[in-house]
């Protein structure tokens, strides 16, 4: 094979003077934008500012005319899938560091495989790296078994020692006449554009093996990962399963080296799997997500590194994976920060509306229900807020069709009246329950009821009614209203708004 086959004409002089940092920064900007908009059209605008000829490169990449581009795409997808699948196992077994150690431990093997015939023979390097990686993990388990040192310490030591040995060997080979031109340095940070047909065959075989084995033995690998002791009682060949898993991991790491590089391959094991674990609670779905995220990260890494001249692929792949992780952290429906924030916000608003309804009810009650409207001033003084704030609260009720505002006075709609009765009833029932059943002094129960009233579900209210012998007067002597029947869709806005008995308010996450 001839050198790294970057399909890029030699750099023009002014190109060469551009600091690399600058180019990678602009590349990173592109990365963020490309991932956000998933289109090159938007990115063109930034191109005008930064004057990089990456628009042409992008066009070349997307046309897929260049075989090197096709090889890079295929290779990075394959590696994303195999690393993503095996990374899923590492993450759920809390063995992330093992991936790191294994990937660094292969470096001396890469160097020795290169020494075999002083050129980048994929098979020789594969075998060398595999042997070194397995030797590394054997040393780890030997240290853990025979000394008092714990596994994380052993992993850290082996990782560093093997990696150091590999670096020494590499720097020696670089002085050899052929060493410098061979592109062996691409093993450190990855160069997807340098993937040859031989590399691809190897990656294809490894990925097929990984997918096949995991599909075949999914149930066994799952049990061995979740509860190895139980697996042994079921007479599963746990030892052999563990070894197969380790071997597959070593295969995947070694096959990925050329494209992502020794230094960062562990990130391609961990980040897609970590992202997937934010998206689902089931292991098989997590593996599928992890493989997909790995493939997408690989592809976008190949694309972004192609935009510049001889940019390493590994860092861009890992950055893409990191961005995807960030998106999942923000947007994942169940565990994401964004959806959680929205849920909490809507709960806060519901609680605020319920408090306003309750205040309106109390003003009406203090007037003996002689009037059907409440002046905004009276509401403001009841809520202990100024006029503006009271108007905002009323506005929120009006938008939810719980009240109407005319001539500076608030009137409740039927569903608003229902909601007001429900929340006051919840409050007073709970006060009654605390004083009766829990024997708490009447002057202690109000604050607690202020919180509980918003989270009581229908079933709990029924239970309270059942347990309280006389549920018509609260401990302070005020009548407990009953909730007028209305069409259930309207009632949903009120206090008994929870489906079944699931409390929603109060920081509870539904």
């Amino acid at each position, binding site marked *: 094979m001839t050198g790294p086959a970057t399909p890029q004409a030699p750099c023009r002089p002014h190109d060469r003077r551009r600091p690399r940092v600058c180019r990678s920064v602009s590349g990173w900007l592109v990365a963020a934008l490309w991932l956000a908009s998933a289109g090159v059209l938007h990115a063109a605008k930034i191109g005008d500012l930064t004057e990089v000829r990456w628009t042409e490169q992008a066009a070349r990449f997307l046309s897929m005319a260049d075989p090197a581009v096709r090889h890079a795409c295929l290779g990075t997808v394959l590696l994303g899938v195999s690393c993503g699948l095996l990374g899923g196992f590492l993450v759920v077994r809390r063995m992330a560091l093992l991936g790191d150690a294994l990937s660094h431990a292969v470096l001396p093997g890469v160097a020795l495989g290169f020494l075999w015939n002083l050129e980048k023979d994929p098979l020789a390097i594969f075998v060398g790296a595999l042997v070194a990686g397995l030797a590394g993990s054997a040393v780890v388990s030997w240290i853990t078994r025979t000394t008092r040192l714990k596994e994380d310490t052993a992993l850290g030591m082996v990782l560093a020692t093997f990696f150091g040995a590999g670096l020494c060997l590499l720097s020696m080979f670089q002085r050899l006449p052929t060493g410098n031109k061979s592109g062996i340095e691409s093993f450190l940070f990855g160069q997807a554009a340098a993937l040859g047909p031989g590399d691809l065959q190897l990656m294809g075989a490894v990925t097929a093996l990984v997918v096949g084995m995991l599909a075949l033995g999914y*149930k066994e690998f799952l049990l061995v990962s979740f509860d190895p002791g139980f697996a042994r*009682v079921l007479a599963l060949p746990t030892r052999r399963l563990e070894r197969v898993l380790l071997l597959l991991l070593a295969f995947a790491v070694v096959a990925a080296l050329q494209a992502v590089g020794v230094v960062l391959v562990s990130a391609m094991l961990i980040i897609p799997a970590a992202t997937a674990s934010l998206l689902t609670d089931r292991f098989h779905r997590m593996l599928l997500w992890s493989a997909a995220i790995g493939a997408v990260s690989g592809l976008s890494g190949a694309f972004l590194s192609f935009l510049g001249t001889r940019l390493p692929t590994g860092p861009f792949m890992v950055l893409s994976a990191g961005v995807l992780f960030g998106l999942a952290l923000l947007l994942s429906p169940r565990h994401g920060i964004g959806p959680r924030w929205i849920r909490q916000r809507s709960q806060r608003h519901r609680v605020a509306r319920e408090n306003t309804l309750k205040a309106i009810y109390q003003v009406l009650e203090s007037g003996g229900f002689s009037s059907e409207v409440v002046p905004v001033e009276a509401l403001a003084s009841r809520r202990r807020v100024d006029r503006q704030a009271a108007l905002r609260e009323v506005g929120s009720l009006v938008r939810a069709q719980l009240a109407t505002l005319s001539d500076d006075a608030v009137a409740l709609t039927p569903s608003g009246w229902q909601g007001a009765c429900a929340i006051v009833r919840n409050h007073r029932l709970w006060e009654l329950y605390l004083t009766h059943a829990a024997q708490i002094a009447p002057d202690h129960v109000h604050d607690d009821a202020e919180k509980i009233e918003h989270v009581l579900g229908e079933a709990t209210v029924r239970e309270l009614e059942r347990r309280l012998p006389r549920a018509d007067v609260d401990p302070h002597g005020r009548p407990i209203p009953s909730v007028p029947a209305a069409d259930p869709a309207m009632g949903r806005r009120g206090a008994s708004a929870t489906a079944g008995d699931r409390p929603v308010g109060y920081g509870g996450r539904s």
Partner: protein
Amino acid sequence: MTQAGAGSDPAGSAPPLEIHDLTVAYRNKPVLWGVDLAAPAGRLIGIVGPNGAGKSTLIKACMGLLPCASGWVKAFGRPVPESLGRIGYVPQRESVDWDFPVSVMDVVLMGRYGRIGLFRRPSAEDRRIARDCLDQVQMLPFADRQISNLSGGQQQRVFLARALAQESDLYFMDEPFAGVDAATEASIIAILQGLRDRGKTLLVVHHDLPTARDYFDWLLLLNLRVVAFGPTAEVFTPELLQKTYGGRLTLLSEVAEAVQAKAR
């Protein structure tokens, strides 16, 4: 039973569990000495003893999860590795990671894995049995929950359901009542007694001495060696309990440490 041939043995000729001169050592330090016992069939047997008495160690060694320094264990007259298909296991709740992304149903189905066979998928029948077992422990409504959303008592019942799904004849249970409320404890003991009434043999590690007398037909009093083994009425005596719990067995632990030091 599925293994009808072995199961039809008269209880006398092949006891469900027979242990002869079993010694177990951690890092060369013996933690269980010369255990001899033959468990009768169809009994609910409690294993009690102070902390560090080797209760968990004993059942793990019986199932081959720990290497034996000496002695042998037979189940239904055959070496344990050959009769694993008839052995069910409830490990300690802390032995697994409850944040693992699996559902309650997934975990209970694991009890079927030994019967399903290597590299095969669970059948509809396996799922039906798993649902049945979940129903027995009153956890069916939680079948699709992720296991981290369960309370301690619910987790314990999931493990019990998984063991039930194994459809075994001999059960080892490691503290199935740990972290369980009184109501759950009562429902679990009812299930265990139901298994016993169907002729199964159960060995249950138990921490609480006062309830041990009510729960178990037989008791194994353990403190680094077998203090007593027999029907509860015979062995639940002040003298034997004093022997089990009272005072450290100074000599035995000293010798154990000496053995360990010598092996270094």
